[in-house]
């Protein structure tokens, strides 16, 4: 079976910018769907203006982010506010399977691209709207961002950190722009549900994905305490933000960086204390004060005495590098991992052996990028097609597929419709 082709034959028209909509389309493209990406003439997708850029020189064809999100897509320019532009879009949608947009409902209605307008045009069309808060509700016209979704979903407030000075330490978002990508994955999931439903009914449908709600689904550990035991567990452990998470689990400094300490079962702690931390742990006076009887300790001893045990373990870690600790942990089957940065990732034998990274052209350079987040069947990594320059495939799409002539193209270009 040809690889990366699970969704071959599916035609997607993408009418979105920055991360959520384009990443959704990228995921479908990774599995073989064809994407026609629409950009506004002269303006283009905002991610063209976001880095990283080679040598920090911003150029619209050199954005690393744009390349990652839009590699291999067919790029056209189209002003859908113009009646001729709208007509062209509708002709494209007539033959498409999936339409991805990120505008709010009133904008779409204004453009005459609401679902009520599209359904009669192509009853098989799956229309995805991915927006910060959803298409209806008190916040439906609000602008959003990853930061706002993290803060308004509870993800940031429930970040397990030791917050010594809350006024100077606001609730954190995860690194990067996580919920922007999450919104894209969630959109792709909903699209595939709709495609599978279409297999039974022969009909498309409309999907409304909210980035805030997608992020809020990650609160599976946080909402239950509030609803199951509000006066007990929630009140004691979670109501206030000064949290430390699950006791001993977290990141510890070591000689050349940090490691993730993940031991949370008793047998793991016995192995760590007995065989990694120090075979003669009983000789460590301070530790034996806290853990006098190795045969009788249970996990709660570790948790309850973590404030005393942690400095001893950190002192040991500071004498070892990430790799040393990781290798020791691997030998013993312990859940301890190095805190990597991208240079480590790019050198990782694990990722290399799985052919994870792909190479792509950004401006004039060849750059390594992450590959697809999952693989089907016999996977083969493919070089990512280059992301389109503005309107690169206008001719191919408008003339080749819709039968417009060169004169039409010239005329539309002159009117700035394309």
């Amino acid at each position, binding site marked *: 079976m040809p690889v990366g082709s699970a969704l071959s034959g599916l035609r997607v028209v993408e009418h979105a910018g920055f991360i959520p909509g384009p990443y959704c389309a990228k995921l479908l493209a990774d*599995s073989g769907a064809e994407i026609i990406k629409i950009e506004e003439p002269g303006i283009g997708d905002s991610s063209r203006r976001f880095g*990283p850029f080679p040598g920090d020189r911003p150029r619209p064809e050199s954005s690393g982010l744009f390349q990652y999100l839009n590699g291999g897509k067919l790029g056209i320019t189209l002003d859908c506010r113009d009646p001729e532009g709208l007509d062209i879009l509708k002709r494209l949608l007539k033959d498409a399977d999936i339409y991805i947009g990120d505008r709010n409902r009133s904008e779409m209605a204004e453009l005459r691209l609401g679902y009520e307008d599209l359904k009669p045009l192509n009853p098989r069309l799956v229309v995805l709207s991915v927006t910060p808060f959803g298409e209806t509700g008190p916040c439906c016209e*609000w*602008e959003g961002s990853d*930061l706002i979704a993290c803060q308004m979903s509870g993800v940031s407030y429930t970040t397990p950190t030791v917050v010594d000075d809350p006024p100077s330490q606001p609730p954190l978002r995860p*690194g990067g722009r996580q919920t922007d990508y999450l919104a894209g994955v969630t959109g792709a999931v909903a699209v595939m549900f709709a495609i599978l439903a279409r*297999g039974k009914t022969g009909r498309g449908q409309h999907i409304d994905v909210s980035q805030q*709600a997608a992020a809020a689904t990650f609160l599976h550990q946080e909402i239950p305490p509030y609803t*199951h035991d509000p006066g007990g567990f929630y009140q004691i452990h979670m109501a206030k933000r000064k949290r430390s998470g699950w006791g001993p689990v977290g990141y510890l400094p070591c000689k050349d960086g940090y490691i993730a300490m993940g031991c949370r079962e008793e047998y793991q702690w016995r192995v760590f204390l007995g065989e990694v931390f120090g075979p003669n742990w009983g000789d460590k006076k301070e530790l034996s004060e806290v853990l006098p009887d190795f045969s009788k300790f249970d996990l709660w001893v570790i948790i309850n005495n973590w404030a005393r045990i942690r400095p001893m373990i950190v002192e040991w870690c500071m004498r070892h590098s990430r790799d040393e600790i990781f290798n020791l942990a691997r030998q013993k089957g312990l859940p301890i*991992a190095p805190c990597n940065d991208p240079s480590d990732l790019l050198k990782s034998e694990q990722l290399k052996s799985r052919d994870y990274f792909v190479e792509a052209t950004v401006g004039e350079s060849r750059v390594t990028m992450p590959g697809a987040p999952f693989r089907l069947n016999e996977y083969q990594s493919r070089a990512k097609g280059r992301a389109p320059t503005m309107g690169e495939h206008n001719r191919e799409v408008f003339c080749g597929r819709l039968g417009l002539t060169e004169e039409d193209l010239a005329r539309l270009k002159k009117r700035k419709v394309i």
Partner: protein
Amino acid sequence: MNSLPLEGIRVADFSWVIVGPYSTQWLAMMGAEVIRIESTLRMDILRRQPPFADGVQGADRSGLFNGLNMSKKSCTLDLRRPEAIELARRLIKVSDVVVEQFSYGMMDRFGLSFESLRQLKPDLVLVSVSGMGRTGPLRELSGYNESFLAYSGLATITGYEVGPPVLSGGVWADHATGMNLTLAILTALYRRSQTGLGQTVDISMLESVAAQIPEAIIDYAMNGRATSRTGNHDRDMAPHSCYPCAGDDQWVAISVRNDEEWRAFCGAIGNPRWACDPKYATAQGRLQHQDELDRLVSEWTRKREKRWVAEMLQRAGVPAGPTLNVEEVVHDPQLNHRGFFVNPEHPEIGRRLALGMPWIMSESEGTIGSAPTIGQDNAYVFGELLGLSDEEFARLVGEGVIR
């Protein structure tokens, strides 16, 4: 007209804890019959962890389990017993999807290797989720959420500017992978529907998480530069942070994405003199003077109520939103308007609020049922689906095979 996309699809779900169940819960809500294969001898950790309903411990009273396993069924098998493996194979033979999340080699040791299952039923969708993937030198690595956040590089870029890496909110690696896993399963089911062919999915938490930090990886590959921890700042946008508001631990998030929004922001706060300084006119300038800018914005927000600030800025077209704690999220008008919170009736503990779906689909509404009690559906699975007689069923229960 409610058309559930996965009606008629049966999932033999060997996964547990968070990543697998989070993923299969979406399948169950959208019509699949998801049967969790559990065991009272080796219970899902979440059934054993508090919070329990009303503070009373019980395998069927766990908030964490009940919130991640809605609309699913549960059967119990002691997979160390050959007869249990035989029953598992029979269940798989009438299923469409198998999901497993065991440590490396476990399925093989059970006698349920993917090769043998492929022979048993060629068109199965066979799904494996693990930390590192089922191939590669680190395939046997055991670990949890924090290990994969660390190994993938996300931990290193999460935290305050001055300070160590920190965990992310949610159980980030599990949940992020879980949503990707759902996509992988649906993609495989689609392919199968087109070709009749079985599919195999191998998803690694490391690869799912790393796919969501391209900016940091590409910056290094392109410019040799490591991304540092920047708190709530953004690499390209400023002002972009959480600003203190009136009250105890109250914050508002503001993210000005471009110069147009910056001008709107200045206008909204009354065009104070400092904001008109040309050094802030461009994104580059605002990033360069970010610390000073944050201080000035904080002075403005500090005496004002967070919701008032957010609404006022949004009216001017500036992205802003209040920081919400758990209680505020549960009462958030926007999420409630969407019907995001659900309240299924559970046989033992009654109705408890839980999280629903982040999508609203015009023709596929999704169903919300409660999570199963442990072994709740043994009679259905072994009696009805697999056709065991009452005597046979009783014998297997008595001998601890169904347990």
